[in-house]
């Protein structure tokens, strides 16, 4: 009897839902699989908050079209990511997948989405394979290609006139990619490369090697806690004044600067966005983010916001049609008619950004450490893999 009642009730609700669809537009479902826990959790939190800020600005709509954002935490674990995306596709029937932070997740979940025929729009992770040989018409990246900010560090170091650099990274793929990206644009001499163990805490031995090698600058890519430890010890050893520290934006976001305090003073870092970029979209973003969350946004938050604004522009162009008009939605995404918080933004043929890159310096202002733009190092930069992509 109870079972029967439940079924009846279910049918009724379903019927109502169908009837309703005629009157109000069904919301476009956007699945966000991101990393909210673990040490890298603040990246996903900022992407999510930036994204939801844009949705909130329009009272639950993007481009005038109602949207429903489903947020799930992958815990930086590809297995979790796969399960979440499977549920998104089978049960929730999402039209757009976004949110992925780390590059161990994206190679697992992006093909699932693409195979299912929905759109994949990355706010962060962008491994080289998807920028080159395996690029796809429904795969878009709003942030950067993974190498971009490392490449910018190479350009920045060259522009600042450094001749002798020492490089430091963990002994794994992303670490080696980072150093390769730096070297691609650095014109000076690399006097030594030091590889450390992933997860290493104490860098006394490496710091002694750096002191002995006397480089003009050090470029390092040590993610998360590793970078914080290294910067603290580097600064304690008094090396900051002898050998400048040049890093990619990931190693000097506002969260890390708060953690290392005064030790961060003088660090040069690269980014496609900074809070002091003077454009209307950025002003609006900063105002909204600060008043809603009472903290400073990281570059990840800006990427989440940009992702939402890109989707908004495409939804507006197609009147809310995504899977019903794939070609139209795709074209609308490709034209990228939205005001990015980073200023200039358009897509290259591999659907990765063409944008400007900056170098920044860490300064103390009103008792808070923050990044200040020094200068632009690249205009209309695009990644190194675009030629390998078959899309035109």
């Amino acid at each position, binding site marked *: 009897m109870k079972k029967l009642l439940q079924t009846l009730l279910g049918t009724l609700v379903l019927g109502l839902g169908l009837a309703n669809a005629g009157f109000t537009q069904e919301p476009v479902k956007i699945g966000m699989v991101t990393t909210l826990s673990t040490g890298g959790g603040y990246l996903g939190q900022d992407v999510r908050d930036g994204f939801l800020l844009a949705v909130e600005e329009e009272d639950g709509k993007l481009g005038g079209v109602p949207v429903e954002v489903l947020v799930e935490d992958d815990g930086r674990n590809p297995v979790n990511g796969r399960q979440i995306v499977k549920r998104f596709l089978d049960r929730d029937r999402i039209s757009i997948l976004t949110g992925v932070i780390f590059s161990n997740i994206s190679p697992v979940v992006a093909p699932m989405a693409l195979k299912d025929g929905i759109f994949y729009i990355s706010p962060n992770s962008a491994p080289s394979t998807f920028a080159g040989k395996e690029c796809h018409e429904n795969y878009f990246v709003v942030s950067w290609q993974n190498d971009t900010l490392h490449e910018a560090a190479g350009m920045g170091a060259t522009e600042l006139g450094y001749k002798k650099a020492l490089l430091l990274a963990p002994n794994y793929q992303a670490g080696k990619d980072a150093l390769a990206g730096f070297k691609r644009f650095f014109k000076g001499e690399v006097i030594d*490369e030091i590889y*450390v*163990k992933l997860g290493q805490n104490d860098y006394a031995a*490496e710091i002694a*090697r750096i*002191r002995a090698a006397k480089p003009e600058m050090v470029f390092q890519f040590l993610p998360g*806690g590793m970078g914080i430890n290294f910067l603290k010890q580097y600064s304690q050893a008094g090396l900051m004044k002898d050998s400048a520290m040049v890093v990619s934006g990931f190693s000097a976001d506002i969260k890390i600067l708060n953690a290392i305090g005064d030790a961060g003073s003088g660090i040069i870092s690269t980014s496609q966005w900074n809070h002091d970029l003077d454009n209307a979209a950025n002003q609006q973003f900063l105002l909204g983010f600060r008043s809603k969350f009472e903290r400073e946004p990281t570059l990840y938050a800006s990427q989440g916001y940009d992702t939402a604004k890109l989707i908004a522009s495409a939804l507006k162009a197609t009147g809310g049609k995504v899977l019903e008009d794939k070609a139209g939605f795709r074209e609308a995404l490709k034209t990228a008619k939205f005001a990015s918080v980073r200023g200039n933004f358009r897509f290259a043929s591999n659907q990765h950004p063409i944008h400007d890159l900056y170098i920044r310096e860490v300064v103390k202002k009103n008792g808070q450490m923050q990044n200040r733009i020094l200068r632009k190092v690249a205009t209309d930069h695009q990644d190194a893999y675009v030629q390998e992509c078959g899309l035109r």
Partner: protein
Amino acid sequence: MILLIEQLLNGLQFGVFLFLVSAGLTLIFGIMGVINLAHGSLYMVGAYATAIGMQWTGSFWWGLLMALPAAAFTGWLVELVIIRQLYRRDHLDQVLATFGLILFLNELTTICFGRAPLFLSLPETLSISVEILPGLLYPLYRLLIIGTGLLLAFFLYLLISHTRAGMLLRAGTTHREMVEALGVNLTLLNTGLFVLGALLAGFAGALAGPLISVEVGMGENVLILCFVCIVIGGLGSIRGALFGALLIGMVDTLGRAFLASGLRLILPLDFADSIGAALSSMSVYLLMALVLIFRPQGILPVLGRVR
């Protein structure tokens, strides 16, 4: 030459630091027969207490002072509630229970203080480098760690070899039933011992705070190396732990310092770098494997052990 001396000092400092954590671990295993995986969590408690204390008072020294009661109290509570139930149980049960404790304490720390690492800055007077030899600048704080660590090792030696409590501890390691039969309150002795181990771990955590980021899970990184130290030194032996820790500190540091550049002399550059990095992170485990093959009881095992 200067570089070599500096790296030797780095190795010594790392070794001394490892000793502070390993000493408690080896005592607790040797005397109480408990494998305490949660020892790293006590180290984390020390570091957090220092960071929080420093935020409250603004002084590193007060923070350091707060680490000791915090770690001791946590140690006492853990012994009372959990470890005490495990003395007569199988090692597997102990591993399960203390592993659960790691998860619990990590989650509790996350709930209380969040996932963002805490920042501990050194007082101005300590954040300088001193010239100990012409041309050799060395951070004063690291020298201080070496000094305090060696001093503590000496005190532990005095405590264990020349006091009544130490005598009971030594007797407890080798002839547990006999000590009990003579009417010594082993429960009290065990609690005291556990708290001593917790104090040492907490102190090590407090010392490490300004060097590394104070974050959830920091204990597990150290714990693994400390197990290597006490296995190499001989389970239950303080001398062994000191020897093992210094050896590991040296091997790890010198490996990281010179292996890659040494290999470059005989191998192509790219190859030498990745082989060097891989070998130096393996070196301590290779060493442990060698010790286990040729001297499974450890290099300086407890003498006269019957169990």
